[in-house]
């Protein structure tokens, strides 16, 4: 299956991929094309290619809401970055415990942890809100960040557990012989060897937190604390009022840029990281 491809095969493959890419990206291309059109033309003349490139949606859209997108991007980045740190720290600790340590009721906790993956969001929405309200954390970033430091994202715990189990125990045992305790093993051996999966968790964590909309909607009141996805929702008025579609598309297109860049820059690490983690030994 892996004979060196002939030139014809390779060209053929490229053509297929190119066509597939265009099909995949067409909706996006339409959105970007429309972002260069004034609002009256977007729906009355819905083609993907604009007749002229009008940048006003971008310029206008950036400051269309009372608070400019600079603030929204800042907020999104802060929350996402802190979420990444929290996830990496807390999930790796938890995964280490499950993968390498033994303790009573371990099975039970593990099953419960997996169980949290299955919870529909609305199960806990209101009670959690009331709880955070009692803590006085509503209208701050705290409800969005602190849970990450408490390993609430079971997906990453699961992923890291799988990865840690792929690292040979002989290394651990050698360290124990030398008198290392579990913390040393975690810090000096496990983590350094786990750079790929940590990078993976970091990237997915960043992207998913950045894209998260429901959490910010519920917990952020002051517009100055909004994140980008939340701000984008303000552009559309379903009650029948006027929506700024051109600006919406322009800002949506822009909002993809950071995540896209992050992805492009780190994708190699992802492949390597997930490879060692996803259940294969």
């Amino acid at each position, binding site marked *: 299956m892996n004979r060196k491809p002939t030139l014809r095969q390779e060209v053929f493959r490229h053509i297929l991929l190119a066509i597939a890419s265009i099909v995949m990206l067409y909706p996006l291309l339409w959105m970007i094309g429309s972002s260069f059109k004034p609002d009256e033309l977007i729906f009355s003349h819905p083609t993907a290619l604009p007749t002229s490139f009008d940048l006003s949606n971008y310029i206008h859209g950036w400051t269309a809401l009372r608070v400019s997108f600079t603030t929204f991007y800042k907020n999104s980045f802060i929350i996402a970055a802190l979420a990444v740190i929290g996830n990496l720290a807390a999930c790796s600790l938890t995964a280490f415990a499950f993968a390498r340590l033994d303790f009573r009721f371990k099975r039970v906790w593990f099953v419960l942890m997996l169980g949290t993956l299955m919870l529909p969001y609305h199960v806990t929405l209101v009670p959690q*809100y009331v709880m955070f309200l009692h803590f006085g954390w509503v209208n701050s970033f705290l409800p969005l960040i602190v849970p990450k430091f408490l390993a609430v994202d079971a997906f990453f715990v699961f992923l890291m557990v799988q990865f840690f189990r792929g690292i040979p125990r002989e290394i651990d045992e050698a360290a124990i012989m030398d008198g290392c305790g579990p913390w040393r093993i975690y810090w000096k051996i496990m983590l350094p060897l786990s750079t790929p999966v940590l990078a993976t968790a970091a990237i997915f964590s960043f992207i998913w937190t950045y894209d998260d909309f429901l959490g910010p909607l519920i917990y952020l009141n002051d517009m100055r604390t909004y994140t980008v996805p939340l701000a984008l929702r303000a552009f559309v008025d379903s009650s029948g009022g006027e929506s700024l579609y051109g600006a919406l598309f322009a800002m949506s297109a822009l909002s993809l840029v950071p995540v896209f860049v992050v992805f492009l820059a780190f994708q190699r690490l992802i492949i390597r990281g997930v490879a060692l983690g996803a259940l294969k030994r």
Partner: protein
Amino acid sequence: MTRTFTRREFGGLVASTTAISALASTGAFAAGESVRLIWWGNPDRDKRTNDVIDLYMKQTGTEVVPETYGWNDYWQKLATQAAGRNLPDLIQMDYRYIFEYARRQQLAALDDYVGKTLELADFDPNQLASGKVDGHLYGISMGANSMTYVYDQAVLGKVGVELPDPTKWTNEDFEKIGMEVKDKLPDGMFFVQNMGSVEPRLETWMRQRGKALYTEDGTIGYEVEDLADFFTYWKDLQDKGLTPPADVQSQDADGKMETSMIVTGKSLFGFIHSNQLVANQKLMPDEINITMIPNLTGGQPGQYLKPSMLLSMAATSSDKDAAAALMNFFITNPDANKILQIERGVSGDASVREELITGLSPTEKMVIDYLDIVATSVGPLPPPPPKNAGELELALRPAWDAISFEQVTPADGAKKYYDDAVAILARA
């Protein structure tokens, strides 16, 4: 070993928490003079509202903290806040929801403020009454509007038709015009959007027959035959080719203006509320105009002046006086209203209306003129919707779709919806 770890993580946590708190304290919860205001809207309304807030803050020094969301998200957010007893002080309310919230003790009664902090001497008493629930005032109308048939003026001119007197024309007149121009319309354009699932149109239908959607005591206000007639009427128009076919019409899935039949060029006539005219015009290159809903021959006035949205106060508001002052500013202050204009509807305050007339655009003037015409031919405000009214509105859409997609006959579809409606209302 573990100690080092804990210290380190703790240090990190402290550092980041401090950082976060510093960042999060942008909307400083200053104890004392601070009023929270929440509304739904769009960028245009947001800008105006924020400008009014800035004006108020400058004039009085009271801090106002704004919150705004899109319509879809607004109610989820509001309900969650209410569950946590954390509602903002001033809430923009919808006519349908105000009863739900008021009857569940979430809103403060405003009666004591009328005539004092709330200077409502010039306010139209009928419109004031629209904010009353069970005899007490829970919200003040921020603007009136009424239903309309909107149409593309340019196309109408091209097919050479003149519309009759809006206060007198009937369904028969409407259909006659439709049959005349049917084939002269541009490609893909039908005469009128199908309104089988549009609850306000249903309401007009019932009122024209002297009935209503609901009665005072929260039961259904019409007979199943009235509903069957309504569905039959619209199915008939669909069969005659005067409305778009079922699948084309249902592209207008959620009543969003930009997918409406008239904006996408698929119908000559459409249905909007008068306060949507300006926004609608912005989406279309052709000039549009509005007229009244055609009546039943010999029918009663079907329309009324509806509050497009109301401003209410939360029962849990910590500083009701400050909230009332801000409310008064929005409703009666001329400078504030010069900024807001008629984006939310036409103000019920006569002195405000006077001040505004001069600064309006032609399209906006159309709205005011229209409401003047409507005011000569309106009926009284309908009784407040019962607790589960929202469900009934939501259920109308699938009921109509089943008919228009010919899964059931109009009579059967009407019966099913009617029975469901009665059951839903009984469950309240």
